[in-house]
């Protein structure tokens, strides 16, 4: 028994060192309060997603570092244009934290259009539209918004988190908030995590939007 115990102990020491190291990093530094709109063409195809992401106080202030303004403390859309450009360019690397599936098939987005930043009440809001590479029709659309590395915490607004724009009247939208420790109060979609579809830990932080159009 002792050699086995010893081996076990040795491995545990190592495993724990590694795990603690890796796990502790999985925590957010940026908080985003989001709202999203799904945009439909008249014929019922989905053409894209329009996001509005409001950054937390601290990150907003960080992002504004070094930006010159005419009036101190006020930022116009024009003054913020270069920053908005930087934002959408940087987001590309992270696939815009937006993951879409039409009837189970992954869908791709092209580069954002109509993007701008807004500064209000010490917080920055990034508005941008993600066009789908190939607009599609689907009975079942799923859209997930989250950061797999959990550097950013995405939480949807309490009021009107998701809207359908131009969709057929009989389309039904369902919205599930993440079910992680920091959002324990919002226990929606628990079954979703228990049915084994989420084999990735990051899925804990995912906001899931599902639209069904018969």
């Amino acid at each position: 028994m002792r050699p086995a115990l010893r081996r076990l102990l040795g491995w545990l020491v190592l495993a724990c060192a590694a795990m603690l190291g890796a796990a502790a990093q999985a925590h957010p530094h940026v908080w985003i309060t989001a709202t999203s709109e799904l945009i439909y063409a008249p014929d019922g195809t989905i053409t894209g997603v329009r996001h509005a992401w409001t950054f937390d106080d601290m990150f907003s202030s960080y992002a504004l570092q070094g930006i010159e303004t005419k009036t101190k403390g006020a930022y116009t859309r024009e003054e913020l244009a270069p920053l908005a450009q930087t934002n959408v360019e940087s987001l590309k690397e992270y696939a815009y934290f937006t993951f879409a599936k039409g009837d189970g098939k992954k869908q791709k987005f092209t580069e954002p259009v109509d993007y701008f930043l807004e500064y209000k009440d010490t917080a920055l809001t990034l508005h941008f539209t993600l066009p789908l590479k190939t607009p599609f029709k689907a009975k079942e659309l799923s859209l997930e918004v989250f950061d797999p590395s959990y550097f950013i915490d995405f939480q949807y607004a309490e009021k009107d988190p998701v809207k359908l724009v131009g969709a057929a009247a009989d389309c039904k939208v369902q919205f599930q908030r993440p079910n992680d420790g920091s959002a324990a109060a919002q226990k929606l979609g628990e079954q979703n995590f228990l049915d084994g579809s989420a084999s990735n830990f990051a899925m804990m932080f995912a906001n899931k939007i599902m639209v069904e159009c018969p």
Partner: protein
Amino acid sequence: MPMLSRALRGLGVSVAVLAAFALLDGAVHALLAQNPFGAPRAAEPEGGIVGWLLAKQSEFYRQMSATIRAAKSDGSAVWTLLLISFAYGIFHAAGPGHGKAVISSYLVANRETARRGIVLSFASALMQSLIAVLIVGICAWLLNATAKTMCGAEKAIEIASYALIAAFGARLVWVKGGGFIRAFQPPRPALAMAAAHHPHDHGHGGDHHHHHAHERHDHDHGHDHGHDPHHVHDEHCGHSHGPTPAELAGPGGWQRGLGAIVTVGIRPCSGAILVLVFALAQGLFWAGIAATFAMGIGTAITVAAIAILTVSARGVAEKLSAARDGGGMLVMRGLEFAAAALVLLFGIGLLLGYVASERVTCL
């Protein structure tokens, strides 16, 4: 008889340590489903201790901005800020997550003492704070650079730090591999060595505390057994308590840990940088600096606690393996080698992006 009681006591301690680790492991595991070091597993939300830690940490962190704002008009809020930052540091548990892994593995691989573990933890955490202050001080305060530039600098430092970890691990593997292979001698030489090593093995089992106690002033201690020619080359013996120039990190006591300090300390915590820039924007840069160091001290306490835990666990493993002759040494050398390999793997994993959760996100 004393052997038996020692073994029993060791067993008891190890069971306690095991239980603690099992608890931690269970809590941590849910978060690691995508980590290369953890087996994939269905996500388990509400992850016990870790979930709570994350929630606490976020709570403290989010209070910081409000407190800095309050400090503009009410100076006493600075004390609250320091307290929150300190608590955040503790919960944050090592600014860059890899800090603990590197320090712990280094301590195991190099047979270091708990005392050195504590010093390494504090030195690296304070260096981290200093680097964060320097980055923001130079980029934002002196040059008024944009967030893009600053984050770019942060990313460059991050890559460099991962390369450093890999290099540090490679060096450990190189050195430890030798010890491991030597411990792996074929039966006949091993027999001869076992005889020659006997007093030595004994020394490691029983004299361990003795070494600890004298760690500070006695650098030649390990060479007491130096009459055996094997020992002169057998770096694991004298090495830990009496480094010679040929050994791991060059001459001297503290210089030896410098590699670990720089490897861990060079990468600042993103949280600290955000707080510093925010404080600067509020015209309270000094409060941000104070908060950063308070965070660093909190972080150091947690890392030091883990370092102590690691060193004790290693001590238990050593005691258990010393109770058995011959193979015990092989196990310990194997453990050291594995710890060294872990640092290397960790560095490579970070560098290649397998440990994706450690990346700074620039927006």
